[in-house]
């Protein structure tokens, strides 16, 4: 399989035992992978490993075939420009307005003039449906709008690979559905590869080509919706059905 992203025998340990142990995962170009699993067991860590924000204790993180952490800083930075990330709590720049948040990566990393940047900002604001809030600051807009802004900023440099860390956390079901539809629409438009963390199974099925469960330091690759539902692993079965009793009980962080 052609790989755009890969973890090869990756172990990560923050000092109290390995969170992930010799895990392997490959993501093909244009694929949508959804990571599910109990809280605190490493879903966001997988995203941060791919994004180059965390370094594995051992093993390799490959992005477009290149070992991300073996690259010199400028090459790593160039590769990061091909990736975008929506953070769990959005990580919006609170001293910048909504419009300036989207303009930030363009001002920093492109040679576009201000007119073109403004045109791009308007385009992205329109695409995520918050054009009327351009002059407001992040703390002046709702949680759903903040998510939309986070998505717009993640996509501002038109990355080929996009990571979404819990894009529907704390949102009502209707807004959640709209956000997932927006992600899908933007994915089709940009033809991008996406890796999403969510524990909302309805949204996971809606979005995923492949579902991967993170538990016990392992990555359990379950496949699409049908394969996931039919998966025999008791941990997967317990998690997707939300059963109180089972092998995962007591392991939540």
């Amino acid at each position, binding site marked *: 399989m052609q790989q755009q992203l890969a973890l090869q025998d990756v172990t990560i340990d923050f000092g109290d035992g390995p969170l992930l142990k010799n895990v392997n995962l490959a993501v093909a170009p244009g694929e949508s992978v959804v990571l599910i699993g109990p809280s605190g067991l490493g879903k966001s860590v997988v995203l941060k490993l791919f994004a180059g924000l965390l370094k594995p204790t051992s093993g390799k993180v490959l992005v477009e075939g290149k070992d991300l952490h073996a690259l010199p800083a400028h090459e790593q930075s160039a590769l990061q420009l091909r990736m975008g*990330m929506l*953070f*769990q709590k959005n990580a919006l720049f*609170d001293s910048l307005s909504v419009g300036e948040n989207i303009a930030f990566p363009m001002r920093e*990393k492109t040679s576009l003039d201000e007119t073109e940047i403004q045109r791009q900002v308007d385009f992205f604001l329109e695409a995520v449906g918050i054009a009327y809030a351009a002059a407001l600051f992040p703390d002046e807009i709702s949680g759903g709008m903040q998510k939309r802004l986070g998505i717009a*900023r993640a996509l501002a440099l038109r990355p080929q690979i996009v990571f979404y860390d819990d894009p529907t956390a704390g949102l009502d079901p209707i807004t959640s559905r709209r956000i997932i539809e927006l992600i899908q629409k933007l994915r089709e438009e940009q033809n991008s590869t996406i890796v999403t963390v969510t524990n909302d199974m309805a949204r996971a099925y809606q979005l995923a080509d492949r579902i991967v469960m993170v538990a016990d330091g392992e990555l359990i690759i379950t496949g699409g919706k049908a394969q996931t539902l039919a998966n025999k692993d008791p941990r997967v079965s317990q998690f997707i059905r939300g059963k109180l009793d089972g092998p995962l009980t007591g392991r939540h962080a």
Partner: protein
Amino acid sequence: MLKPLLNVIDDIGECLIFLRLILRTAYRSPCTWESICEQTWKVSVQSTPTTALAGFFVGAIMTVQFTMQTKAFGALGYLGGLSTSATVREVGPLLIAFLLSGKVGAYTSAELGTMRVTEQIDAIRCLGANPIQEIILPRFLGIVISSFFLLAAGLIMSIFGGMLMGSVFSGINPEEYVRHIPTIVTQFSIGNGLFKCLVFALILASVCTYKGYSATGGAKGVGRAVVGTAVMTMVGIVVFDWFTSLLSETALNLFREGV
């Protein structure tokens, strides 16, 4: 007993490594002049009123303290020179450093700490930018540059404070007060004051950016970063005040022997 000491040594080591990273970034990929000017302006505006007020009263205190001694030796005319010299050489830089530590140091470490725990710094990296270049370097240089402006502001106000107190308390008119300032405040005194100011500003700028940048663990972590900044800068400034005083006295003695 040993563990806290090792932690302190570890913290100092980490801070020095962080300073090296800042200086390397300044050399290899400097930030824009606009961002440095913005931060310098911000720090200066933030701290000028308190520095000026404190400078005014330092001048007044020095005048009150020196009046008795100068009167006893019949040297009241030297009051302005002595008071200003003490402010330039010692009290001014120390006072500016303490004020900046309490105000700008705490503000900067809280601001950077919040950016760290809300993942804004990670977001900057994810957008292909270098957080040291984008947010640390301008703040670092802003604090260092503005400390010189603030020293000048504090000094001018201390002369005013001294003059006022001199005429009210010591019965010395303003012209007489300033007459001996150039005699006693030598180039060496000014150089000494500027050197101390630079050293203190470097300590403050390194510690507050390091503590904020390395904050972890939500609001509690930000609180820890602010407290850590206050403690580390105060102790660092006092220790380096002693060290720079020793150094400048040695340099002065060597200079005199040479002459």
